[in-house]
């Protein structure tokens, strides 16, 4: 018997109004992601993959269609419910790391743990994750004192600190050199294999996508068959 997909998207559309013009960023997307899967959504700039990331992460509501994340239907969620979804169910890794510059690496992670309502202290398994990510010794540093690769690893730690069902990564290697890119992608693969973390990664890079179990391609707001 098939398990219920952790992400289930049916006929998803998203239309933005830019000035007088309607921009159809997503035009009927259907996708299913199983729990524990590592999937890459590959597409060029303007293909709609970042919009898909934003909708799946509950950052923006869909225009039409249905989106179920962990069994919850996003299409009818209020802002507050989508905030809770981001707090409880989804973790984000962004291309530009998006760490708070005024806080240390450790506090960047702790503030998210606090927002998730899990206190601020790291438990033993999470300390192990920090060692796996190779940032245990760099936690007291501010982001500006860290390399791009280290910042992205802190961002990954922040994304999984509350144990989200899904990790969404938007061009996680977009700002990194090839060595750091490989390191970060291997870490994502490790997290997927060792912890069973479901990962949906947005990328334009086929090489990055090759780390995933499965790749889907997007063009003009649609997934290619």
């Amino acid at each position, binding site marked *: 018997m098939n398990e219920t997909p952790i992400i289930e998207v049916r006929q998803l559309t998203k239309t933005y109004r830019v000035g007088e013009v309607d921009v159809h960023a997503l035009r009927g997307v259907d996708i299913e992601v199983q729990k524990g899967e590592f999937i890459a959504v590959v597409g060029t700039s303007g293909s709609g993959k970042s919009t898909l990331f*934003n909708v799946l*992460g509950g*950052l*923006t509501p869909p225009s039409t269609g249905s989106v179920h994340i962990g069994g919850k239907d996003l299409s009818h969620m209020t802002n*507050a419910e989508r*905030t*809770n*979804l*981001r*707090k*409880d169910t989804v973790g*984000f890794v*962004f291309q530009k790391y*998006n*760490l*708070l*510059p*005024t*806080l240390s690496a450790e*506090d960047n992670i*702790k*503030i*998210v743990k*606090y*927002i*998730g*309502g899990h*206190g*601020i*202290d790291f438990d033993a398994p999470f300390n192990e994750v920090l060692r796996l990510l190779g940032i245990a010794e760099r936690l007291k540093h501010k982001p500006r004192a860290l390399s791009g690769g280290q910042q992205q690893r802190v961002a990954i730690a*922040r994304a999984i600190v509350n144990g989200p069902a899904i990790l969404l990564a938007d061009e996680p290697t977009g700002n990194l050199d090839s060595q750091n890119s490989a390191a970060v992608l291997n870490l994502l693969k490790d997290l997927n294999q060792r912890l069973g973390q479901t990962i949906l990664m947005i990328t334009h890079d086929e090489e990055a996508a090759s780390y995933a179990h499965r790749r889907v391609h997007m063009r003009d707001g649609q997934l290619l068959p």
Partner: protein
Amino acid sequence: MLPLLSSLRSGAPLYNEQVLLNKLTFANLGHRPVRTLLSILAIAVEVTMILTLVGVSNGTLHESARRARGTGADILVRPPGTSAMSSVSSAPMSDKLVDVFRAEPHVVMVTGTIVQPLELFDTLTGLNMDEFAKMSGGFRFVQGGLPTQDTDLIIDEPYAREKHLQVGSTLKLISREWHVSGVYEPGKLARICARLEALQQFTANAHHLSQIYVKVDDSNQAQAIVDSLRAKYPGYQIYTLEYYTSFLSVSSLGLLRNFIYVVIGVAMIVGFIVVFMAMYTAVLERTREIGILKAVGSSSGLILNMLLRETLLLAVIGTGVGILLTYLTQWLMVHFAPGGMTQETVYKWWPITGVIAITGSLIGAIIPGIKAVRQDATEALSYE
């Protein structure tokens, strides 16, 4: 729900979480030190403005009351048509009234004065030096002594310090050269005194007085004596000194009180605008960071909470600095204008001013706070 409440309800280790939020608050303020310092300074100026005005109002009035009590009199007689709080700038009473009041029962001493207004708050007071000395116990001179010539005058120490005067100095008042014959300890009726007859003559008020001071045999009976004098001399404004000095307070002076309220209002608006600008810029600068917090599931309450913490911290530090600056204005006044206004430290106004500064600041943070809360996470994240 506010994070503080949620922490309480979940029983999470509140202390560490609050430390983390406070760390973020300090870090955010420290991230833009110039803006933070300017905001603190602006709030401090608001606080200093209020405290200095209240301090000067109270100090100057209390100093006037102290000097009035220093006469040793129990009753004050003012001309018809004046009030306890109106300034006396003319001399409409005949000096024969001194003998008239002296003949009244229970009256043991009477002396009249003439008051000539000078610039700003200063006045030149003409006294019968012998009578005044008997009533008040006499001036305590730190330099020189009583006037011996018609153009001599005596001044109190703060006035001498402010104007750099000493015995033998000359100064020009009411178009006439005066010589300082003595400098006395403050607290006796006026800051500048001359002989009564001389000042009456120089101001073309021969045999006329501005005020009459009366000492009675039993101070406790002063009010009863005032009542009988009022009945006998209708029209004259006759008060006990106690009643007169009780009027020398901010709460009794409607105009001054209203002026203080206006200054408080202006100061509050200044504080509001400064904090509004500071927080509005902070929210704009931190658009991306607010987007990050929203993306990771931060509630509107937490974002608002962080901004309000910053505002509160600015206001509290600003209030503290403002109180310290008040001591500076006090010092400046003592050293550069000791003969003019007196500034007191009015402790009961510290919390009042603190509340005013904090309220103005928090109101100033409301609109930036709403802007922060309403920011769209995806737009905020793409903000450069």
